[in-house]
């Protein structure tokens, strides 16, 4: 039986080389985290300005989980990120302006206004667009891994899900099937300690969700989700293990959801002290400090990067706002995919 274990906090101790990441890679991850938070902060403002319809969700506090795991993936790997994992899209290379266009329901959002929020993905990046129903993407992510296994490709599927969603049957069927067939899939549980207003003790009765890996015959590990290097290192290990035919791993990233469930929710039910405590562990601030201490990133260098990101996002917003609204006359198109070619030998 696999036993969940905590990984030590890496930020304080680690040499950069141990991670197999070069300086540029590390700074790239920092940049991706900044872009992620920056897009969501702009989104929040756009929402308040009435430019984003519907509701609005952010992943503040989860940037390390999203960017850290995505950075450990290869381009040929596939994934199903969720509503707190916008950083995955950023890391995989979706242009920020298209994400803002997506929020606003514009034609240039990946979902072309048909779906909102981060319910989007570019299949070129081997990502699959999430549905709201949680965690319905888990069996789908297992299906991606199944395809890789059937074709004997050395590719891995990465599957994100939340602590709340872990209670649903889809999580169970997905992990059980993946375990039985030792499929190349990594389950990443974004445990941000709340499912809407529901705290862990009303969601599950085991100590860590990673413990559940044992029920499916694979390893589970609990990692500090605010420590991007710890996340990266565990994700890398799990992904490469899956790639080598070692089967699934469950990586539980523990964070705290730093905002309400969505903009309308002030999270009155989250104790103030808990928020304060976790605010001190902000994943971006932590990584900034690490970069300055371990790879001698100077204040000037980091500030410049930050300014670049700001400029990029200002540009992105402009471009997104000029994206047209989708054309209602096209609404009924694309419900079905068209057959690629006329059917041969058709015989009625």
């Amino acid at each position, binding site marked *: 039986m696999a036993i969940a274990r905590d990984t030590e906090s890496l930020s304080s101790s680690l040499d950069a080389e141990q991670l197999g990441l070069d300086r540029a890679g590390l700074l790239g991850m920092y940049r991706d985290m900044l872009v992620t938070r920056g897009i969501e902060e702009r989104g929040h403002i756009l929402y308040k300005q009435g430019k984003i*319809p*519907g*509701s609005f969700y952010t992943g503040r506090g989860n940037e390390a989980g999203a960017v850290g795991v995505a950075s450990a993936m290869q381009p040929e790997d596939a994934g199903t990120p969720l509503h707190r994992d916008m950083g995955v899209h950023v890391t995989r290379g979706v242009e920020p302006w298209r994400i803002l266009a997506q929020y606003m*329901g*514009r034609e240039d959002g990946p*979902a072309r*206004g*048909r*779906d*909102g*929020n981060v*319910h989007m993905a570019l299949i070129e990046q081997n990502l699959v667009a999430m*549905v*709201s*129903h*949680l965690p319905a993407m888990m069996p789908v992510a297992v299906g991606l891994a199944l395809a890789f296994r059937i074709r004997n490709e050395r590719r891995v599927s990465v599957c994100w899900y939340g602590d*709340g*969603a872990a*209670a*649903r*049957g889809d999580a169970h069927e997905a992990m059980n099937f993946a375990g039985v067939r030792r499929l190349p899939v990594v389950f990443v549980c974004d445990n941000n300690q709340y*499912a*809407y*207003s*529901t705290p862990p003790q*009303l*969601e*599950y009765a085991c100590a860590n969700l990673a413990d559940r890996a044992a029920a499916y015959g694979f390893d589970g590990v609990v990692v500090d989700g605010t420590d991007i290097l710890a996340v990266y290192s565990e994700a890398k290990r799990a992904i490469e293990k899956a790639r080598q035919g070692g089967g699934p791993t469950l990586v539980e990233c523990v964070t705290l959801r730093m905002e309400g469930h969505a903009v309308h929710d002030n999270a009155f*039910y989250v104790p103030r002290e808990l928020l304060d405590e976790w605010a001190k562990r902000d994943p971006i601030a932590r990584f900034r400090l690490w970069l300055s201490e371990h790879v001698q990133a100077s204040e000037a260098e980091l500030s410049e990067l930050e300014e670049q990101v700001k400029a990029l996002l200002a540009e992105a917003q402009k471009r997104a706002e000029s994206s047209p*609204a*989708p*054309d*209602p*006359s096209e*609404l*009924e198109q694309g*419900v079905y995919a068209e057959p690629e070619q006329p059917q041969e030998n058709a015989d009625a």
Partner: protein
Amino acid sequence: MPEKTYLQAISDGLRQEMRRDERVFVLGEDVGVYGGAFKVTVGLLEEFGPWRVIDAPLSEIAIVGGATGSALMGLRPVAELQFSDFVSCAWDQLVTVAAKQHFRAGTPVPMVLRLPSGGGFSGGPFHSQSPESAFTHVPGLKVVCPATPHDAKGLLATAVDDPNPVLYFEHKHLYRRIKGEVPDERYTIPFGKARIERAGDDITLVTWGAMVYTAAGAAAELQSEDVSVEIIDLRTLQPWDKEAVLESVAKTSKLLILHEDTRTSGFGAEIAAQVVEEAFEQLDAPIRRIAAPDTPIPFSPQLENAYIPQVEDVASALRELAAY
């Protein structure tokens, strides 16, 4: 009589049921401390405690199965799914266990499932659906779709009294927009009895839920063109008030059916099929249906507007029928 929003009518009605009958309890995601995603259950946890207002894990199967089991033991669960869209996750429990139980085993399953449904606020494909039609095809379930605050409270009380699984679709877009007089005392509204939203002679317009208001807007337009439209608000789809529809069609000879759900195999089809079967001789024109197109419900306001039937769509269908 006090004026209340549609939401307040449901909320107050639910509280009244819980005060009146201690078998009634509430089960759902975030229904306790948070008071439900739409705040329908606010205050109930404080009044009735954590074993009558149960915050469930994110588990639609456990919620519906749990309601079924507790109903079998004589309780009266009023379960909430956060959005009616998520009922797809519990489809099997509903159609396989709850719906067939009485027919097979003779044991009643007195449960209510509250399902906030409908679109109109850019909720996108997974927070705006109107899944009521699908359940009218499942013998053993009842389907309720109130349009007014008064009906919302009265039908909820009937649902709680009913010894069968009742799916209670409350339209999210009516929650705070619609107000009406609601008696303080308890009252019930029978299932299967339609409400005449507006009497008329020339065309019968059958609808339910939020579309009642769209219908009313269109009928008002047509009034000024001297076409008199009778609007029938079905209130419940299973059972549905066929008699009221046939009676109206006997008078008007023309029928328009309007619903927010998608067109193909929506409940509008059943109404049309039934009327053409039973009132063929009375019809003076084709039965028309106005419904959402056969696509998922889209997110962006421009698309959603094109998707949900609008007053103008209904008005022009009425005009065509009038001219037929």
